[in-house]
């Protein structure tokens, strides 16, 4: 065991922090704060290009596809620093790991460098109106027609579909096979004819949530596919093996810097706020009950950090996880909810005030967070489904 970063890793972190200091000025910050977290404006796009040019995106990916053949820990460090300022620079969600694992040479060569430079972005098209936690019951159809597939159906909560260049889609290719064995994955441009994107607004979006709010800045969408014709070369992995390709990517995307940080940033925020502020002269940081609770939450947050480090350590060793990713995906979101709800009882009525209210604390961050922190326990594998996985896959308990 080795619970510290090496000197090189520490130096990398220092370098990233210096880079941020030098390159993220007031204008960039204001753009980050005032545009949708993911569809960022020109300054942030520029920033992302510079970050990619430093070789800091996809560090652990193979060199031939634009990565550095580097360490997963290094990649984590870069992602942590940028996540902290509200800029996503890596990971590229669950699509990239799936492409790396199951893509053809051609797909890797065309998609991965674009994902690194930011020219390609993927919307995730998995969930449907009737298929959420039980994703394998999805109905969106892809029917082979010569060298093409023709896609018809509807996807729900396709979060970045309104600006993403491509969609990473799960569709049914064999309706007669058992439900997990008739699914395939496709990646194709969003400007393919027949795709319609309609916005869905969340309970956090009006007034806009401050940057860093858990699930804050996300307009999401529903996306309709009407006779969308794509070449068969868009299929990722083998036909009807899409469930396994997709699940593998999801599994790897349940861990890492941004997922960790959305569950623990409020611990830091409330402690730092309480050190420097009071409520009309009342210093909440000296209330014994509050102190005890904050310490308890801090310990829980350390467990989030260590579970993240465990996943990174496993990945760095080239091992897969049986239940560790799922464990993190239960512990961290539920912790985030406990902290968020505790904060509301520390700040009392002030924690209701949203971003546009003059009297709001931290621009309404805590209020907006209350509306969304639980969402990270539903998305990307709900805590219930994750516990099922831990019990069945991790502990070998029998199915019901």
């Amino acid at each position, binding site marked *: 065991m080795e619970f510290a970063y090496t000197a090189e890793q520490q130096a990398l972190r220092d370098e990233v922090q210096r880079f941020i200091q030098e390159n993220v000025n007031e204008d960039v910050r204001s753009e980050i704060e005032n545009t949708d977290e993911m569809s960022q404006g020109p300054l942030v796009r520029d920033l992302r290009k510079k970050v990619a040019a430093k070789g800091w995106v996809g560090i652990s990916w193979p060199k031939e596809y634009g990565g550095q053949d580097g360490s997963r820990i290094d990649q984590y460090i870069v992602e942590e620093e940028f996540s902290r300022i509200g800029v996503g620079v890596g990971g590229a969600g669950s699509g990239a790991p799936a492409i790396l694992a199951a893509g053809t040479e051609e797909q890797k060569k065309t998609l991965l460098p674009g994902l690194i430079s930011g020219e390609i972005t993927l919307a995730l098209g998995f969930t449907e109106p009737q298929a959420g936690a039980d994703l394998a019951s999805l109905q969106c159809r892809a029917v082979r027609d010569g060298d093409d597939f023709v896609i018809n159906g509807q996807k729900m909560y396709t979060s970045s579909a309104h600006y993403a260049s491509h969609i990473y889609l799960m569709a049914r290719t064999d309706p007669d096979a058992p439900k997990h064995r008739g699914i395939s994955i496709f990646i194709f441009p969003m400007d393919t004819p027949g795709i319609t994107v309609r916005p869905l607004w969340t309970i956090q979006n009006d007034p806009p949530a401050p940057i860093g709010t858990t699930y804050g800045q996300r307009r999401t969408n529903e996306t309709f596919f009407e006779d969308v014709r794509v070449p068969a070369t868009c299929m990722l992995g083998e036909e009807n093996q899409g469930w396994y390709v997709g699940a593998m990517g999801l599994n790897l995307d349940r861990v890492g810097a941004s997922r960790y940080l959305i569950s623990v940033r409020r611990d830091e925020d409330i*402690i730092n706020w309480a050190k420097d502020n009071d409520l009309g002269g009342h210093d909440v*940081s000296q209330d014994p009950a509050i102190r005890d609770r904050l310490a308890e939450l801090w310990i829980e947050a350390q467990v989030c950090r260590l579970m993240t480090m465990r996943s990174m350590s496993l990945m760095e060793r080239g091992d897969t996880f049986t239940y560790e990713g799922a464990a993190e995906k239960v512990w961290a979101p539920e912790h985030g909810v406990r902290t968020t709800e505790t904060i509301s009882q520390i700040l009392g009525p002030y924690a209701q005030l949203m971003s546009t209210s003059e009297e709001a604390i931290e621009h309404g961050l805590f209020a907006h967070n209350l509306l969304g922190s639980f969402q990270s326990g539903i998305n990307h594998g709900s805590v*219930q489904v994750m*516990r099922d996985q831990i019990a069945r896959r991790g*502990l070998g308990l029998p*199915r019901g």
Partner: protein
Amino acid sequence: MDVLLNEEEEMVKNAAREFLGGECPPSLARAMEVDDLGYPPELWSQMAQLGWLGMSLPESLGGQGLPLTYLGIIMEEVGRAIAPVPFHSTMVAALTIAADGSQEQKQSVLPRVCQGDTVLTWALTERDPRFLPETIATEAVEQGDNFVISGTKMFVDNFGAAEKCLVVCRTASASDGDQGISLFLVDTGSAGISNVPLTAIARDKQSQVIFDNVSVPRSNLIGQINQGWPVVQAMIDRATVLLCAQMVGATRKDAEMGIEYAKNRAAFGRPIGSFQSIQHLCADMILWVDGAQLLTYEALWKMDQGLPSSIEISQAKSFCNDKCEAVVRSSQVIHGGIGFMMEFDLHLWFRRVTSWTMRLGTSFEHRSKIAKALLDQPGRVRLGMNLEPVP
């Protein structure tokens, strides 16, 4: 950064598990609960032969000089097997002598520890069970070349089996410069000592020890007179992190027994482990014990590296207190009535882990230390930073 065990650590763990699996069945723990000495001397000497007793003691004194993390791993396995041996108390005292004793003290005690020829313990707590210098009232009064100790210590482990005991004494009232605390190595057979066994839920060997004018030669003072509190603090830290390791080992085994039982016990025509509410409870048990283990390893590692570790130790102990208890209680719940029966083994783990949650600092005490570090010093906090304790 690699929070998993490396190859050597894995080997040490597996070897320990294999040995204890063979030599230390639950029936041994059961037998020792009603044994006067409280531990099997043969097992103790086998542990010495395996090098466990000298694991993290200096090579020049017969030890192996390995990192404290290795000792932690052994301690975890000893906990897993609920091995009825005075390992924890002996290691805590021995490591303290190794760190702060004089050359003669080390020479006279530590080689014998490594050989398995002696058992040690330590006596700190009195009526007020908090870990603060002002709770120490037991006095050591200088008389010529000796100190004369009078007072009452509580919750002393393995006193009956121990040959020597480190006793925390007041030698002066607290002043600006120091806390007036001194630490003495006392022969347990000295005149004036009485040992009153305590009956605790672990059914282990805890005592109230009364010192009535017990004379100790000046040469048995560990460290400097009146300057003993930092030495004691380091001893408490070591004791706490090693107890966490022991708790983690015992708790994981207890969880595994619950999960195994859930696979086999049927109700309503199917294994209870196929019910989602039981499955999710089992998943939580593993999350909790994993969290306790990660926190404990981090604390052990930092302590071994000589880095400030008292906040990490408090994190680990507070979490162990709450979550290990939740795990062993949940395992009892999964077992229904049978886990409550004396003839079934599960309670051997349940009672010990429960008892350990109350030793070496309650959750409130540890969290109060963490809260101070978080809230009572300038600067912004950030997860992953080193947090220094605030005195």
